[in-house]
């Protein structure tokens, strides 16, 4: 045992010396995480799990779950690149979403509203659990050449409880503008 203690002490001493002698140099060399300074290239369709599309999730999205979807808060927004010729023909807003049974057991029904630059699109109420697609026509007058900011609002939210007090709304996988 004594030999072991000596061995441990020696190892600790050597490591301490190595750590201390390298300390100042390491401090200088702490590698920074390089940032991406180029403006993001916006997509017309955003997969919420795509790290490249993170810049388009403007507000109200919780962290990525199981590498494929996100919960939203009661209010959320995305930036979308208008598809080709949208200024002439308009486009179709498509949101792929899911509402778990446990949510509707608590909330009974959920209404989703979308607004683009102050123009409200028709809302939709969901009272059945499962996968849904929210689809709305977006008039050409709303496309001005700039990225489109789509604001979404839910009439109800819930908190899971049990230490998780996040404001949760619906599960979203994809939001996009489809050309017509």
């Amino acid at each position, binding site marked *: 045992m004594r030999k072991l203690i000596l061995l441990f002490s020696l190892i600790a001493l050597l*490591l301490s010396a190595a750590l201390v002698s390298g300390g100042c140099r390491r401090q200088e060399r702490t590698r920074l995480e*390089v940032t*991406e300074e180029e403006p993001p290239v916006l997509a017309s369709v955003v997969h919420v799990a795509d790290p490249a599309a993170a*810049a388009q999730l403007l*507000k109200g999205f919780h962290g990525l779950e199981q590498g494929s979807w996100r919960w939203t808060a009661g209010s959320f927004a995305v930036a979308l690149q208008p598809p080709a010729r949208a200024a002439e023909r308009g486009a179709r807003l498509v949101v792929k979403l899911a509402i778990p049974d446990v949510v509707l057991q608590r909330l009974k029904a959920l209404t989703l509203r979308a607004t683009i630059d102050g123009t409200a699109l028709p809302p939709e109420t969901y009272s059945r659990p499962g996968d849904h697609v929210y689809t709305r026509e977006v008039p050409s007058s709303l496309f001005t050449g700039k990225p489109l900011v789509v604001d979404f609002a839910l009439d109800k939210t819930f908190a899971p409880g049990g230490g998780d*007090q*996040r404001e949760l709304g619906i599960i979203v996988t994809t939001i996009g503008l489809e050309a017509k």
Partner: protein
Amino acid sequence: MSRAWRAATWIAPPLFCLWVYWLGLKTWFYQDDFAWLHLRFEIPERVSFWTALFAPMAQGTIRPLSERAFFMGFSALFGVDALPFRIWVFLTQFASLALLNAVTRKLTGSPVAGLLAPILWTAHSALAVAMAWTSAYNQVLGGCLLLAAFYLLVRHIETGRRGFWIGQWIAFLLGLGALEINVVYPTLAAVYTLAAARRHFLKVLPMFLPAAAYLWVHQHLAPPASSGIYGVYLDGALPTTLWKYWEWALGPALLERVPLLPGWVVAAGTASLSAGLLGFAAWKLKRRQWIAAFPLAWFMIVLGPVLPLREHVSDYYLTVPLAGLALLGGWALAEAAGRNWPWRAVAAALAGVYLVSSLPQARSWTRSRYERAREVRKLVLGVAHAQRIHPGKPLVLLGVSDDLFWAGVFDNPFRLVGAHEVYLAPSSDAVIQLRPEFGESADYVLPGKIALTALANQQIVVYQAGGRRLRNVTALFEEIAARLWAPEEPRLVHVGNRLFAGQLGPGWGDIEGRHRWMSRDATLRLGGPTGPGQSLFLGGYCPAGLLAQGPARLAVAVNGQRLGSSELRLGDHRFELEFPLPDHLVGLPVMDVRLELNRTFTPPGETRRLGLVFGIVRVR
């Protein structure tokens, strides 16, 4: 026993520990780590060296060795490079494993038990916190010093050598600087000597004196909370809390967090492991091997100090108590290995239940902490890089999730890398849980009106977190921010921050550091309260010169209506004043706030008439 086998019994536990917690070695900083890392920068302006080392902090804890000195020393040498910290934590734990191995051999006489005890201890998922969070070094060092003191006591009893006795005292006293629960060491020593070396019993009693003195000082400096999450409750809940810890200590109960696992599986696992451990101890006691009670006593005694924290039952408190049960388990397995096959089969089955319920959790919890810290590192060192590219410009962050906020924003790690003005984007706190016991995420959010003005004036740079790297999205936000952020009046004004200068009326001096002086009276603009019962908070600093002729009085009015006044009596002290806001102000888009002092003063070498130093004004 061959030389190679002997060496293997010492080397195997650290190797096993490395295998289980490998990612813990590479885990970066998160949460409280940043507060400890920043401590040395607060000397001497905010606190003295001795205050930093010994004043109660973080729920009234005083751990100069395992937190203050550890973080201040290592951060002075290595900055925010986490690897040296982590290597040191692992080395300390390796020493603990060797000590548990040695103690088990001494108590049981079995090298096999000595090998198995540290392996069983390592396999428990409760150690994942200590092995993957640098702030939990207190558990690792505290456990190491407790085991060291006990090992030295055993050696002293065995050899009679005075050096071991002195060493035991040193380890015990150092342990008090590592973790509060080490105060129970004299009780452990007393129980051990009663069970195995009665003629030494009286000799250990003097150790209760420093333990009592420590408790008295601790009680005096940091009285225990009587309510809240760290409240101390000596009530009927103690047995329930003890049972919860016992269940967790055996392993299967931790599987309750695994969905779809039938409850009876957990109950059966707990019952069989309880029967195995307690049955083995009872069998040994029946044969008058009193030392078999000691591992159970270790568990109970070391766990004792945290049992009254009924609102904060945490598996990580099991880190050190578990060493006792691991000793008993290792002994039981070693005994079974030398018996006929039915006993071996039962022992193997019980060991299997324990390992299956603990080991995968230990590895997955270590991984989740590693991944959380990796995201924090990406954010903090990304901000450091962004600040180098945009020196002097405040940074605004989007896409900060709830977990990332509490792990990597709340403790303000950015100041460690030279970024002193980092905000969350307007309304981005909607995805962050309220945790009023820690603080308010709203304090970190740049109000919409301020953000829009600053963006238009090219005073801020906007970055998106949550992608592969931090991405500069300023250009995008110059196009879309006006459609996204509401230009509401802020309900929080950092008086000494240039971004908020537009909220200030007459009566304020220039920015000095992060503050401004007010003269006799000063005005500013804020948004109205969002609901009834809110107050106006003022935070700043009262110079002693202002009080040379007695207490000063600060009166506050909103929209011409007097809210009240407050007397300032403490010179050279920070102040925080609260004035309840009348309900008729709720929902007002803007309030004009007027602050008026009854006197001013002129410090030596100044020509200005000065009043108070202000930092923050807010509605909450």
